[in-house]
Structures are given as C-alpha cells and as structure tokens.
C-alpha cells in the first residue's frame, strides 16, 4: 500500500468527520436536515453544486477516454456544462420559488399530492439508485487500483462514511463535504494541467502539434470512439434535459435563501465546472503523451488510471497519492449528495406527505429522514457489493435518461401549462421512467450490438419525446381539473416572483 496515499485518505476522512460533527450540532429541524436551514450563500452553493456534479467518472473517466481515444472525450465534456444553461434559464429559480425540500414539492403545489409525490419519489429513487451504484462500483474498483484495498472493504468504508455525513450532519455536512471536494478536485486538476502545459511552453498549438506528431492528426478529430452521430445527439439530449431533472442537483437550490442566490450559485457552478471540463483535455492529452498507452490500459482497460498515472509520471509517488486522495474525496461528496436526495424522496415525499398526509410532527419527520438515510445507504452498499463484476457504465447514462424523460417534462408542464392535470404528471413520469429502462434493456448495453433491438446506447432521443407525450396524453385524456387550473395562477405568480417563498 502507498503510505502517503493512506495518510492523505485518513486526513480526508478526519476532516470530513470533523465537519460532520460541527454540522450535527446545527442540524435540529427538517429545514436544517434537508436544506441546511437555507443558510448557504450563493457562491458556497455554487462550489457545492460543482462538487455534487463532477463525479469520479468525469475526473478519471473522461481523462482516460481522451488519453486513449483522443478528441471524442471532449465532445462528451461539452454537454455537461452547456446543460447548466437549461438549469439556469428555465428550472432553478421557479423551482426555488415554489418548493421546500424536494422536486415533488413544486409538482404537488397544484396537483393532487399523493399520486404525484409517489410517482416523483419513485423516479427520484430510481435515478439516485442508478447513479449511486455506478459511483460505488466505480469507486470500489478505483480504490483497489489506487490503494490496494479490497473491493468489499472499500465499498463498506465509503458507504459508512456517506451514511455518517448525512445522518448526523444532514445537508449542512453534505454541502461542506462537497465544497472541500470541489476545492481539492480543482486544485489537483489545475496543478496537473499547469504541469502538463509548462512542458509545452503554455501553448495549445505546441501541445496539439506534439499530439499530432506522436498519435497522428486523427487522434485530434472526432469519431474514434463515438462514431454514430445519432448516438451523440441522443447523448446530448440526455445531458441537456437530464441535468435539469437530476434530483440531487435540484435540491441544492433549496439550501440558499432566495432565487437570486440560486441564480448566482448556478453561475459560480458553471465557471468551476466549465474550467474543470476544459482541463480534462490537458489531462487526457498529457497522459496520452507522457504515459505509455500500454501502461494505461494494463492498469485499467477503460482508461480510468490515466490521470493518476500522469500524476505519477510528473510528480512521482507523492503527486500520485494526492490525486488518488482527490479521487476518493470526489466519490464521497457525490454519494453523500445521492443519499440525501433519495432519503428526502422517501421520507419527505412518500412517508410524511403520502403515508402520513402531511400530519407528521417535525420530530417524527426527522426520525424518519435519518432512518431513510441509513436505509438508502445500506441498500446501496448491498447492491454495490452484488454488482461487483458488472459493467455499470450504462447506469450513469440511464440515470440521465430517466431524469430527462421522467422529470423534466412534468417540471415544465407543471410550471407553464395551465391545463396540466395530476393524471398527466403521473403518466409523464411513469412513461419516461419505464421507457428509459426498457429501451436500455434492449439496447447494445445488454445485447450484442448487431442484434440489439434498439440501436442506441442512450435512449433519450426516443424516451424524452415519450415522456412529453405521456404527460400530454395523460392530461388530455383526463377531465379538466378545476382546482389545478385555479392554483396555476398562484403557482405561476409565485414561481416567477418568489412572493411567499420559504
């Protein structure tokens, strides 16, 4: 085992647990637990959103993709940032203005609470589960590579930590773990980038010339890895429509005091996330130039070790240990965000509002929220242990597909279509959820590419229109809903102005 890496890991664990201890004393009510008492400022939330969003898959996966297949990985990166324009312009402020703790709060505002919250809780938990298993399985593999820890041990350590953060420190601890992670990740990536660039006189043209000389000009052109344009367009739809439907991102807007701060936080997040994804190209091309390709693929076929190996090539063992610790912190912050979002869907939407009809006391809600967090954490650990030898790369795509097809259509219709009904919302969510899962099951993710019934790995091109269609048909096939239409004006005024927002 790498001793420096081990010490840095222990240091990260110690600091994050201290933060949790500090946050625990400030987490008394459900508003503290789910929304950090709305005490987070715009820029803090912006950094936390970035920490919530930039996963180990981005850091290690995209750098690896670029190191092995050149330009195509960058094509992937672009969508992750542009997606935030949808969040900023269309979703963040209305949602902040009309919700309390979860995405379903806004939907339940004018529609019937029980069916709508149940459906929304289902899609939130599905998205969180897919995303979580992808993160945990990836994390187990990465920590094994970096630290030599056994897969099972790694999963249990990460799983226990994420439960501790959320159960004791709620959203406040989660936020600060995400902020610490974002700072570490940005420092690590910047350091690596500057180190690579100074070898090429800080000139992109020199860097590209060197890549072209060593790897051929083709390496700098699209199409080596993602050669199907329709697939790329479908991926783009999933990213753009899906990010604005990811529950663990959306609930971050409830941690700030107003829509104005929510807006500011998206801009902060965009500058951090954008810089990060631009730097993935320096990491990727740097690894392609400075580390032997055989060495990268020998360590991990998918290229996940490209960035750590680059760090080793540049700064030796200490730098490798530092980058490994950054990857570890990255994983922790993302999974903690997923636990609190899934627990909120279960405890706030399903238990408090559906089962208890909104009559549970704050104390009871807190108790259930904490138990739900433990439950979500334990189930995730078990699923991750069972999925050990599965290829889980498709799960992230599936999470984005469900978020884009099940959530975004009903969010938009609820905010802007007066005639929208409860049945429309339930049909929309279920059509989006079921069609995404089914299309993935009959796609090349599960079947041999030649005989796959559905040709695309990413179903969004078909499932997003289906989600809209389901919500639209469900509405037109149900009688006009007087209550929903009367409440629409109220929701509309409040979503646009923030009057009466919590």
């Amino acid at each position, binding site marked *: 085992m790498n001793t420096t890496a081990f010490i840095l890991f222990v240091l990260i664990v110690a600091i994050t647990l201290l933060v949790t201890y500090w946050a625990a004393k400030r987490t008394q009510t459900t508003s503290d637990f789910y929304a950090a008492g709305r005490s987070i400022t715009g820029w803090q939330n912006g950094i936390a959103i970035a920490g919530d969003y930039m996963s180990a898959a981005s850091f290690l996966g995209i750098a690896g993709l670029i190191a092995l297949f050149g330009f195509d990985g960058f094509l992937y990166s672009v969508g992750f*940032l542009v997606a935030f324009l949808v969040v900023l*312009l269309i979703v963040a402020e209305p949602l902040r203005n009309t919700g309390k703790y979860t995405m379903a709060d806004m939907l339940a505002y004018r529609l019937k609470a029980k069916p709508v919250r149940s459906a929304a809780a289902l899609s939130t938990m599905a998205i969180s589960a897919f995303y979580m298993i992808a993160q945990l399985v990836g994390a187990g593999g990465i920590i094994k590579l970096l630290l030599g820890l056994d897969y099972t041990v790694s999963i249990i350590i990460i799983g226990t930590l994420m439960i501790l953060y959320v159960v004791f420190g709620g959203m406040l601890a989660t936020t600060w773990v995400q902020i610490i992670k974002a700072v570490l990740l940005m420092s690590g990536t910047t350091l690596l980038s500057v180190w690579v660039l100074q070898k090429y006189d800080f000139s992109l*043209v020199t860097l*590209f010339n060197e890549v072209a000389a060593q790897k051929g000009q083709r390496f700098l052109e699209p199409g080596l890895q993602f050669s199907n*344009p329709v697939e790329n367009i479908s991926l783009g739809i999933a990213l753009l429509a899906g990010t604005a439907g990811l529950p663990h991102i959306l609930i971050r807007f409830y941690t700030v005091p107003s829509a104005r701060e929510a807006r*500011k936080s998206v801009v902060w997040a965009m500058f951090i996330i954008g810089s990060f994804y631009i730097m993935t190209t320096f990491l990727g091309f740097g690894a392609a130039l400075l580390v032997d390709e055989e060495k990268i693929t020998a360590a991990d076929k998918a290229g996940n070790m490209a960035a750590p190996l680059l760090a080793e090539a540049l700064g030796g063992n200490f730098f490798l240990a530092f980058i490994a610790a950054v990857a570890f912190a990255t994983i922790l912050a993302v999974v903690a965000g997923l636990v609190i979002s899934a627990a909120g869907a279960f405890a706030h939407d399903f238990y408090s509002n559906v089962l208890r009809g909104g009559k549970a006391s704050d104390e009871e809600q807190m108790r259930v929220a904490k138990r739900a967090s433990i439950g979500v954490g334990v189930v995730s650990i078990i699923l991750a242990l069972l999925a050990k030898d599965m290829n889980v790369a498709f799960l992230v795509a599936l999470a984005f597909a469900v978020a884009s097809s099940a959530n975004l259509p009903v969010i938009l219709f609820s905010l802007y279509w007066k005639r929208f009904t409860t049945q429309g919302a339930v049909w929309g969510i279920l059509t989006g959820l079921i069609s995404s899962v089914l299309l993935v099951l009959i796609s090349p993710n599960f079947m041999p590419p030649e005989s796959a019934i559905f040709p695309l790995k990413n179903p969004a091109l078909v499932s997003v229109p289906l989600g809209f269609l389901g919500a639209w048909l469900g509405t037109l096939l149900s009688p006009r809903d007087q209550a929903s239409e009367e409440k629409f004006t*109220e929701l509309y*005024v409040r979503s646009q102005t923030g*009057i009466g927002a919590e």
Partner: protein
Amino acid sequence: MAKSQQQPRTDNHWEQVARTPVFQELIRKKKRFILPASVFFLLYYFALPVVTGYSDILNTKVSGGMNWVYLFALSQFFMAWILSLIYVWHANKTDQLVQRINDQKEEKQ
C-alpha cells in the same frame, strides 16, 4: 369546508397580481430574453454533434495540429459562460420589477 371557502379569496388575490401591468411586463421581459436565448444555445450546442457527425469540415487545421473542431468545442464553454453572465445581468434588472410587485402587494395589505 373552511378550506373551500378560503380558496376563492386567495385565488382572486393571485389573479389580481397576475393582471397588474407590472407583472405582465415582468413576464414579457423574461420571455423576450429566455425564449430566444434558449433557442440560440440549443442550436449552438447541437451544431457540434451534428456537424462533426455528418461532415469533416471542422477537421480543417487552423495552425499546426490545432483544428477547428477543438476550437468550436472550446467555444461552447465561452458561449455558456457569456450567456450565463448576460442572463444574470438581465435577471437583476427584472428583479426590480419583482420588487415593485412586492411593494404594491404590501400597500394593499
């Protein structure tokens, strides 16, 4: 029962706000920015997978190994950043209308 009696009054109240010229102006201003801006960034973004997928035109070199496709992909980041700043600048202005709606509301109460 109590709830159904209360309902129409609150609705009227929100209807009133919705009909004020200030609110109408707020919605008009928001729409006039958000709709064209959304169309613009969607076209700009999807141009990347469409153009790279169906033509090689962006593979043309700019200088040495540097080609247009990298620069176009890179420009997407600056497009997103600049648009986000313009949006904030615009939204800060419409916030003043929101403030006026709030003031009117308080006067009435």
